[in-house]
């Protein structure tokens, strides 16, 4: 039986969800061009931050447009990259004369379309730079980061870069900061069952009902292995170990060590419940505490999803003083909001 979805014309799902999102912002965001949105009041000369990607993963990416977050988002159709003219329209909307940073997940379709969008923008003398998000450690070894996918780590990354963009003096400065936020963020996901494509009702991938995909991507891309279903306390250390190992193997960053401070993000891929996330979070904190790694702050919830897919991911962002300062800034959006400072701060 296919999953019941509350929609209208299946081919208009992406357009209608963006219209609804703009309504949710209640005037703080405006609908731009065919299918983009942008903050209403972006200060002159601000170095702009543009995010985006395929729709269907709400509340990201377009839900991350907001105060001290992204200035705009270019939205594609369901699970498809936004075409170049949509990227261009969003770029024009957020450009305030000091350059635009594109920050999005490393998928072939997104890279090609945003690159063409950037070429079109440059023909209009808009300065554009791109920083790709590639936090999924199971999608390629650390020596081949160009082949890694972007998954849930985008939430802390966009939050940090959005904060930094408020005071960045130049596109160069923001690009450098964004690269650091990406380098310091690593994720591992597990998928338990697929979501379904709104237009067809078909599942996004197939998996044995008794198995789970360790390291599987948010569209069902293969990961490390298909393994038997496990308890929360068995699965959590397996997943975190993959992240710890990645920091150890990667020559571009130091291994996580006692005394280090991290952001911990526990994400649901859609239908995995808050109850399950909290049970896993409890174990993750225990493991971090045992290693003497300090949890500076926590994000928990279904923020990077694939429809009613079930599964979970952990993301760790290793913090330094510059990143902590950016984290402490309050922010507000449909996807993610926080007050000044942090829990426990």
């Amino acid at each position, binding site marked *: 039986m296919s999953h019941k979805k509350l929609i209208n014309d299946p081919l208009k799902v992406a357009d209608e969800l963006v219209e609804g999102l703009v309504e949710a912002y209640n005037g703080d965001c405006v609908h731009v061009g065919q299918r983009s949105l942008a903050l209403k009041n972006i200060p002159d000369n601000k170095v702009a931050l543009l995010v985006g990607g395929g729709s269907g993963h709400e509340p990201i990416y377009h839900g991350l447009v907001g105060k001290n977050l992204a200035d705009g988002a270019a939205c594609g159709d369901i699970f498809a*990259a936004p075409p170049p003219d949509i990227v261009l329209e969003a770029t024009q909307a957020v450009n305030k004369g000091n350059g635009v940073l594109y920050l999005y997940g490393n998928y072939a379709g997104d890279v090609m379309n945003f690159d*063409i969008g950037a070429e079109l923008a440059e023909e209009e003398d808009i300065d554009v730079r791109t920083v790709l998000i590639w936090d999924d450690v199971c999608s390629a070894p650390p020596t081949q980061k160009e082949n890694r996918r972007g998954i849930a780590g985008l939430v802390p990354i966009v939050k940090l870069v959005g904060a930094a963009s408020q005071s960045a003096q130049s596109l160069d400065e923001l690009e450098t900061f964004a690269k650091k936020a990406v380098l310091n963020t690593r994720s591992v996901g597990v998928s338990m069952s697929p979501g379904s494509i709104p237009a067809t009702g078909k599942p996004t991938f197939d998996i044995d009902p008794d198995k789970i995909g360790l390291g599987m991507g948010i569209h069902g891309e293969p990961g490390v292995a298909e393994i038997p279903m496990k308890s929360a306390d068995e699965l959590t250390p397996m997943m975190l170990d993959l992240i710890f190992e990645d920091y150890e193997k990667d020559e571009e960053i130091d291994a996580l060590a006692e005394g280090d401070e991290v952001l911990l993000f526990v994400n649901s891929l859609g239908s995995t419940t808050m109850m399950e996330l909290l049970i896993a979070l409890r174990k993750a904190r225990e493991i971090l505490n045992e290693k003497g790694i300090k949890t500076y702050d926590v994000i928990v919830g279904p923020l990077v999803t694939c429809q009613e897919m079930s599964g979970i991911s952990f993301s760790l962002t290793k913090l330094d003083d510059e990143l902590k300062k950016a984290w402490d800034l309050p922010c507000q959006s449909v996807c993610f909001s926080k007050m000044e400072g942090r829990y426990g701060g």
Partner: protein
Amino acid sequence: MAKESLSPNECRDMLLAVADKIIESEPILTDADRALGDGDHGIGMERGMKAVKEKLEGQDFDSIDKPFTTMGMAMMSSMGGASGAVFGTLFRAGGKALAEAESLGAAQVAAFFTAAAEGVQKRGGAKPGDKTMVDALVPAAEKAEEMKSESLATAIAAVAEAAEAGKVASEDLIATMGRAKTLGERSLGKPDAGAVSVSIIVATMSDYVAS
């Protein structure tokens, strides 16, 4: 009687014939992509070609590059995703190489396919052998260069044969790019859906010139 060369509006009509043929071939493309990818290539190409028809039909062109570049932008805008970018680039990059030309002959066919193959490889990062559309497009471009002193009809017919042979050869390749790369050796024995599209596009161009 085969055409010696094509005027800008004949180029438009040839591309409209390509659009119709691709729309008609949607079930073939869907099946090809369902075997190896996520099954959306046929629908995406159909959507792109409907947009192409809207942009080209009834429009007069005074240079031969414009029908091609217009087609490329229409595909990019309407299709999205990787295939919109790659097929849009094929026509946009190929068309840009015709900017100085007044009519389309064998030399312009060579210029078009050479620039298209370069543009697509640069955009998508695929090389020959990765089991993508490049495996039909690169042999087509190489053949076009070889045939650029021949008559238009002889040249484009040979280019179409080269694209078809490239598509067939892609059956024996293991995918290393795109969604099909996750299948590894399971991708053997079937052609790449993008290569199927390229072979249909070039065959339709050849049929138009021959008619």
